[in-house]
């Protein structure tokens, strides 16, 4: 019994937990990755601009909730229009059935009429682990100085039901509004909800 528990612990310990995290108030971990068009994108490129990171997996019902309702697209459009950089990041490992090749992922975004600044391939999961991203959609907002100002869920309705978008409080929109108004972000963290990222 005891031995079994020890063995379980050993196995659990062998896969290193996602513990590094981007924490509001602290510098955002820098990263460099290829986007779906093979272009190298690095966070440092966008110093001086507000950056939104959206963890994405088109096969996740929670991601679908925000795309079928048009919620994510409208957030992207409104904010990229006013100078915000929006990076969609897919950390699904290529051995998982949810994995989408860059071209396929690009097509999905195009079909959704989504307008992120770039769609990044994080197949190795390095960016996800550095940020402590756990679910899709896990959302981060980074201020022009490179400090994390929001980390967590997209909104407060923890469901996969697209109808809930209408009545939800959108934390990302609120954080962006606060920072645009030059105010500190009122709620800088929340528990993200969604599908487990397939690292």
């Amino acid at each position, binding site marked *: 019994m005891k031995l079994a528990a020890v063995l379980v612990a050993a196995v659990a310990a062998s896969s290193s937990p996602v513990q590094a995290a981007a924490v509001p108030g602290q510098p955002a971990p820098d990263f460099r990755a290829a986007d779906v068009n093979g272009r190298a994108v690095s966070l440092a490129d966008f110093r001086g601009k507000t950056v939104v990171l959206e963890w994405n997996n088109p096969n996740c019902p929670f991601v679908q909730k925000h795309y079928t309702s048009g919620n994510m697209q409208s957030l992207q459009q409104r904010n990229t229009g006013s100078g915000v950089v929006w990076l969609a990041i897919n950390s699904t490992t290529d*051995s*998982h059935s949810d994995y989408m090749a860059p071209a396929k992922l690009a097509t999905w975004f195009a079909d959704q009429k989504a307008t992120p600044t770039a769609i990044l391939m994080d197949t190795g999961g390095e960016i996800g682990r550095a940020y402590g991203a756990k679910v899709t959609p896990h959302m981060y907002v980074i201020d022009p100085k490179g400090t994390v100002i929001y980390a967590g869920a997209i909104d407060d309705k923890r469901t996969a039901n697209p109808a809930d978008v209408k009545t939800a409080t959108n934390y990302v929109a609120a954080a962006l509004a606060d920072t645009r108004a030059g105010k500190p972000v009122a709620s800088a963290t929340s528990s993200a909800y969604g599908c487990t990222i397939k690292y």
Partner: protein
Amino acid sequence: MDENHGMRTLRLLTPILAAAWLALASSAAIGQSLPRFGAPDPHVKASLIAATDAAVPGQPLQVGLRLVHDKDWHTYWQVPGDSGLPTRIDWQLPAGMTAGPIEWPYPHRLPAGPLVNYGYDGDTLLLTTVQVPANLQPGTPVTLNGKAEWLECKDVCIPGSADVTLTLPVKSEANPSTQAALFTQARKLVPAALPGLTARSTIEADRIRLALDLPADRKAESLEFFPLEEARIEPAAAQVLNRRDGVSLYLTAAKPVKADAKSLAGVVVANGGPAKPGGWAAVVEAPLVAGVVSAPGTAAVGANAPTMSLVAALGAAFIGGLILNLMPCVFPVLSLKLIGLAQHRTHSGPMAAHGIAFAVGVILSFVLLAGLLIALQQAGSALGWGFQLQTPWVVASLTVLFFVIGLNLLGVFEFTFGSGLGNTRAADALVGKSDWRGSFGTGVLAVIVASPCTAPFMSAALGYAITQPAAIALSVFAMLGVGMAAPYLLLTLFPVLLAKLPRPGRWMELFKQFMAFPMFATCVWLMWVLAQQVDAGGVALALGVLVAVAFALWAVGLTQRGSTLFRWVALVGAVLAALTFAPLAMTEAGSSAKSSSSAGWIDYSPEKLAQLTGEGKVVFVDFTAAWCVTCQVNKRVALNTDKVVSRFAAEGIVRMKADWTNRDARITKALAEFGRNGVPLYVLYDASGKPTVLPEILTEGTILAALDRVKLASR
């Protein structure tokens, strides 16, 4: 891995799933709530059942949502962990009836890649108590309706829902239903507060220690903690149980750490939970206070390394033991042993006995040392590994021992027992006891001299061991011994390998004499250690002892060659040696210890360190001791090289020296915080105060690379 399992099936399923999602999406877009998931088959079957065959007016009615999961599929607990959603029930009940919250059975950890969720698989019953109004008229049946919603996951997640319904007659008395047994079973799995169980918790940075006082009839061989609030602890972080004094569970707080939290609420599950024999679960609410939480034995703090499991610790201890053989303070003794082996190479029989005796000697010594260490630790002494060398009389005794061995190797006198005998004696020793005794002694000696050399892996294993129950600590130490003895045991058990060793001859006598010089070199090192602990007078006394010992042994040697006259001379020499040694034995360490901080280094203190890191300074701390050879080598080849020194200076990095040559409780404690119990330990604090542990064997490259990383991070 779980991720790859059934991947092919999933690939085939993907188009179907995609089609299903499309259906889901389109229906959802019109604003409808989620339909029941039609295709493919739902992986979780839901039904509503009752414990009794009727509802009784004025009495609570026990109902339950039964979730039967397909193999490998699961749903979530009230706090789902890293991802997932708790199952919900929206009730539509007849007027006057109210349903309580779900009474959750204790959950299981569900690993998903690097993440961990909390939930259920198999057949689960989520209990709910429904209040039945007293004015309900018997005769007319009541129908309970509920809409259950959950998230079902395997390596993909699908929202699931079901409209569940249950119609019951209303009677003045009820009997157990056909499913009553399920309820009895499920009730046992719902944790409640346990009378006599008290809990308190301490938090330091992101480390939390949950300390439990158990009622006498409860044991905790294993323990898991499930938080009742989200974002309080890191679900995937290893939870380490320490049962040294009381029961403590070490947890990792979720980032960002909620600084204003005053309590930590959760469910503790012991010994596998109530479903297992001896298992139990309870709800705890522990007051949370800021304080000191030393690491329970992590391998390296800065690297987010998971806490060492027993298997890993035993493996590391074995490797550490192997490496010990190559350490400068062990190799000379073991070379001696090899000479012994070569001498006996023609007799394959006793050789195995030699090897086994040596191994037993090594292992027993490690276990004894560990036992002693544990005993002292429990007595509250702030002692650590290598503590033997923190006492001057021990250092002096070791000097004498090595000096005596050196004289013996040079041929001044003969040991009349043990393995240092000539070829002729070895033949006699075939049946004699003296031979294995000698091997056993070599094993013991090897361990004594190995203790200051905390080789890589060893200190992490030690740090792990010291936080564990005595049995585990002892087995880790024994494993160090096994590792150390392994090469010799192998050589003796498979003498074929010994054939690769050169044939005996005059070279052996010369080599044996030559080996006296590493012994004398060791004496020089030990004298240098002693000089850090006592004043010049003390050193002179120790040297005086050596002269007296040399004199006595010279007389012994002459006696052995037949000059009986010298027997009394030997006795005089021995008495002289003892008299000289006496005052040394009474000298306390540190009475005149010199501050050996060299240029550019400041002395370590926890307050000073906190102040400097608070100011945003990058600080390098060198935990060292004069008797630690590895430390001295690192100093030469890496820490004090021009390149490194100028780099430290150029970047204004503060260098701190924590000198553990003499006992220092604060340094012992600092080492423990890094899960260590010995030196060297090198820690680099970046501008934000985050520590990175550097390897124990340093090169210029490692240090410069670490400085680069810190520079990059602070940018």
